[in-house]
């Protein structure tokens, strides 16, 4: 919905030709005004609803086409503060209500009448002659909803009305048609002199006397002295309107003043609507207007005339306005837009084709909220990712906070908070715009039996179901646990659900960050019966031939180039040992993740950067794995290469390994057919069940035939680090 401003219809003047009509003020509020009102309300006014003096101003130098405005800026609350140069001040009364109801039920008519009465009194007493700015007052009724940053407001520019309206004797003329160039020059000079005399830069109302040669001016209060013997009276008004047929609002009450004080003596009055603009450094006043006005009669000692003045809303109806400033005032919204803006800077010069929306809208599931989880979450936040879910069953212990940047010492007290929950709290503190959730739950693992009792079994079943649900609800699954075998179940489920998996694992001075191969979507569920129908897996015999359905291989290129994403392996594909209980028969240092403290940050950051690179690839998780040869070619994404994995083998070198393997075929097939029954067999049995199932036992003998591919590409990591951050 758009809410256009009002534009006066010039054509209307020909119909109502001899009636004087005024261009109403449009209220104009600067952003700073609302900030200041908020401050005042919070620190000063609080519950005080009493009327407050405020100040606005209007300007007679606008270029054609701008609406006649009354502007309030942040300085509006200093009623005796300075007015911008060459602008006329207007004093207003602020009624700031405490509730929306009070705002709605305020008697607007009474407010207007009260203000009109004051103007009328000032006219009668002569106070308006001494200080004519009384003629140009306003009312501002507001309600500030500082919870939502919604501001309701309604302006009123009180004007006294003649019962019969005002007649003009002839169509208005432009000053340059009436005045000679010399007179115009003299007029400008006289006005400037008057300003200097009054020690101001703008005079709202003044008297004019002119001959062919000279122009004189005087303040309104000098009426009698200045105009003695004058045949014709010319009154000047500082006119903020830019229309060629109409005067602005400030003339309206002046005419009432003139009619009241001198109406009996004057039949017509000449009004100079003084407009004074400077464009490109050249000043001009010749577009000012001259009206010949027949002053209507005002019965002496009459009661206060009828008054009007409440501003129409943008729809053109009598009603208040509302402006929603949550985007520029709510600190949470500000944080959001700053974060987004910062990211967008990347697109300006460095990566113009970066698709940030793809990154920001990605829903990430973090399995593990320890050293890796914390670092991955922080890097995701850096990328503006909003949807982050943690799964962890551990509590925060005293050793954690120094390595796990989402936790603090306090979190360890009293047995420690749940990691998943504490991580969510901290993320929300860091950035309230995040949509974070935590699940304090265990992930069933191969070799960790769940069949002690019916209760443990059904708990495991619920955990599996919960995990399946979580994985389907997210786009990317991060495997960030501290054991190998805990990665197994999510690997299987995510592969089955065709979710992108990014896996990070740490050794003491080694780590691996990899994306799992993303199986192609099932062609058709019903046909997918036999083991060979799974389209994603290459069998031992087919993997050595050209992958069918993917990009044709370049003759002479290495076997390992152009391996499409759906043929890449996963964490377990690379292993010749099936996952089992790795914590059994281990010493403490073997059970815990003992690693160089910096590695988690590097690996966590790389895992996220890898995800972002994959998302930027037109084929996403199906992207061909970049190899060392590709470093010379056009990079596949705006962020560069999309390798299969990054490995840090020792403290010196960064290497990337790529395996193509096929255990998934067997495992997935069983999982998809048998579900939890199959899983519980895996959880409860020893190593050999999985090893036998996946043919690893056989593989040990057939390594060469199995076409285990091995490739080392150096320095992707350093490349990424240089380019990405």
């Amino acid at each position, binding site marked *: *919905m758009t809410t256009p*401003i009002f534009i006066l219809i010039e054509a209307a003047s020909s119909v109502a030709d001899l009636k004087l009509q005024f261009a109403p003020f449009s209220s104009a509020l600067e*952003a700073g005004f609302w900030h200041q009102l908020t401050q005042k309300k919070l620190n000063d006014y609080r519950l005080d609803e009493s009327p407050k003096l405020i100040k606005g101003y209007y300007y007679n130098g606008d270029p054609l086409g701008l609406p006649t405005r009354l502007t309030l800026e942040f300085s509006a609350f200093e009623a005796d503060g300075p007015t911008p140069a060459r602008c006329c001040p207007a004093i207003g009364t602020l009624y700031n209500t405490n509730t929306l109801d009070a705002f709605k*039920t305020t008697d607007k008519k009474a407010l207007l009448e009260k203000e009109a009465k004051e103007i009328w009194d000032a006219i009668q007493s002569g106070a308006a002659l001494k200080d004519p700015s009384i003629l140009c007052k306003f009312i501002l009724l507001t309600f500030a909803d500082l919870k939502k940053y919604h501001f309701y407001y309604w302006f009123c520019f009180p004007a006294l009305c003649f019962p019969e*309206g005002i007649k003009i004797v002839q169509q208005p003329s432009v000053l340059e048609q009436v005045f000679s160039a010399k007179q115009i020059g003299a007029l400008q000079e006289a006005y*400037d002199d008057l300003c200097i005399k009054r020690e101001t830069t703008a005079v709202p109302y003044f008297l004019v006397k002119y001959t062919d040669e000279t122009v004189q001016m005087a303040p309104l209060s000098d009426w009698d002295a200045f105009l003695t013997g004058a045949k014709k009276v010319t009154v000047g008004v500082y006119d903020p309107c830019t229309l060629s047929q109409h005067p602005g609002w400030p003339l309206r009450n002046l005419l009432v003043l003139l009619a009241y004080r001198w109406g009996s003596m004057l039949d017509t009055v000449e009004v100079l609507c003084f407009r004074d603009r400077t464009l490109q450094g050249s000043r001009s006043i010749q577009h000012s207007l001259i009206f010949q006005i027949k002053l209507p009669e005002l019965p002496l000692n009459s009661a206060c005339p009828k008054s009007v003045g409440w501003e129409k809303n943008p729809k053109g109806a009598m009603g208040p306005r509302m*402006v929603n400033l949550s985007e520029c005032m709510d600190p949470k919204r500000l944080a959001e837009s700053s974060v987004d*803006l910062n990211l967008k800077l990347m697109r300006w010069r460095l990566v113009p084709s970066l698709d940030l929306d793809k990154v920001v809208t990605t829903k990430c599931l973090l399995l593990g909220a320890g050293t890796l989880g914390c670092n991955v979450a922080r890097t995701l936040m850096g990328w503006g990712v909003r949807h982050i879910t943690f799964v962890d069953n551990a509590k925060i212990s005293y050793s954690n906070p120094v390595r796990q940047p989402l936790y603090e010492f306090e979190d360890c007290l009293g047995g420690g908070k749940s990691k998943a929950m504490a991580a969510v709290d901290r993320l929300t503190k860091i950035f309230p715009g995040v949509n974070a959730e935590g699940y304090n739950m265990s992930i069933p693992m191969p070799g960790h039996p769940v069949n002690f009792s019916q209760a443990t079994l059904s708990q495991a079943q619920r955990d599996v179901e919960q995990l399946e649900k979580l994985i389907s609800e997210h786009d990317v699954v991060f495997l960030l646990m501290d054991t190998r075998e805990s990665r197994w179940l999510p690997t299987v489920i995510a592969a089955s659900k065709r979710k992108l998996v990014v896996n990070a694992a740490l050794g003491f001075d080694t780590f691996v960050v990899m994306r799992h191969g993303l199986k192609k979507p099932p062609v058709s569920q019903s046909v997918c019966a036999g083991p060979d129908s799974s389209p994603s897996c290459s069998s031992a015999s087919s993997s050595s031939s050209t992958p069918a359905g993917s990009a044709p291989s370049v003759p002479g290129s290495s076997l390992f180039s152009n391996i499409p994403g759906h043929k890449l392996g996963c964490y377990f594909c690379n292993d010749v040992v099936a996952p089992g209980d790795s914590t059994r028969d281990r010493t403490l240092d073997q059970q815990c993740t003992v690693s160089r403290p910096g590695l988690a940050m590097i690996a966590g950051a790389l895992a996220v950067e890898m995800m972002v690179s994959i998302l930027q690839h037109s084929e996403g998780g199906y992207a061909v794995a970049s190899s060392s040869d590709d470093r010379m070619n056009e990079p596949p994404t705006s962020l560069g290469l999309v390798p299969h994995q990054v490995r840090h083998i020792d403290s010196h070198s960064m290497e990337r390994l790529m395996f193509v393997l096929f255990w998934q075929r067997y495992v997935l097939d069983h999982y998809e057919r048998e579900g939890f029954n199959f899983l519980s067999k895996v959880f409860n049995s020893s190593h050999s069940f999985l090893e036998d199932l996946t043919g690893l036992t056989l593989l040990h003998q057939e390594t060469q035939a199995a076409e285990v591919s091995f490739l080392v590409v150096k320095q992707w990591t350093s490349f990424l680090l240089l380019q990405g951050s």
Partner: protein
Amino acid sequence: MEPQGGSSATLTAIQHHGRRRGRKCCSTALRRSQQSEQVSCELSAGVFLSQYPRILHSPVRHKMTSTTSHMSSCVLDEQNFYRCCCLLLQQSEQLNDGWSWEAVQDSEEGYLRKTTLRSVVINSSTVWDLEGSSSESEPSDQQAQESEQSVPVALDEPDTMEDDTDDDDDEDDGVCAVSKGNSKVLQYEYHIMYSCSYSTPVLYFRASTLQGRSLSLEEVWSSVHPNFRLRLQNSPLNTISLQEHPLLGQPFFMLHPCRTEEFMRPVLLAAQEQHRPVNYVLSWLSVVGPVVGLDVTLRYSQLHPAASISSTESD
């Protein structure tokens, strides 16, 4: 015409302020906001501007007393920043260009401020129709070419609340008839402040509707001239970020000063070679202003600096 009795007093105050502050190093607020940036220590280049040592009182203007060969860096120290501001204010006053000095209450600090209005056409490609002050000379062929890229401004104000309590009493026949136009007026606010970290001026700005709602950067973009939009996005001059105004604490956009010295150096060096006085702030503004819709009229360059002196002194 110099009608303002108070104007020269204000200028003098700023100048004193500058001198005082120059000794005291820099404003804490600015320092706070840019703490992490490296501070350039080579302030000696302020001598560029030393031909304006006493703007208001010294009639000696064109003697390049202290342009030196030691100049190693084209930076602006704070004292000279205030001098430049004084001169700019004076000239702005002559040209009625609308710059004013805003002192912050209970503080020694302040900034140059200017507001402009611009009307934009909603849901139409010709966003640039009526500009506040200075785009009337826009060639029309440019307009055609721009129109493809320009994004319509989405300036939906939230729904207005209908008021049920007030019955309209009789229609006011003293108001001229109005129709809903399809144009919208935007208010632009520009602030110039000094950055101690970069030893350069910094331009802050924001745009708002007449209701006082600040626009997002996208909305600002869509109302900025497409040529400038492109130029800004590819420009080495600057990047825009959302920052809290160091003195007001309200969100503003800021043209980051990190490249300022880079593009000011050639300007200053050329001027130095030709023994031409340069107002750093004005030259800088004429480069960075237009990219965010703030035009600096050429008339500034046509003003004889001496003219400003005499006219001020004549008061």
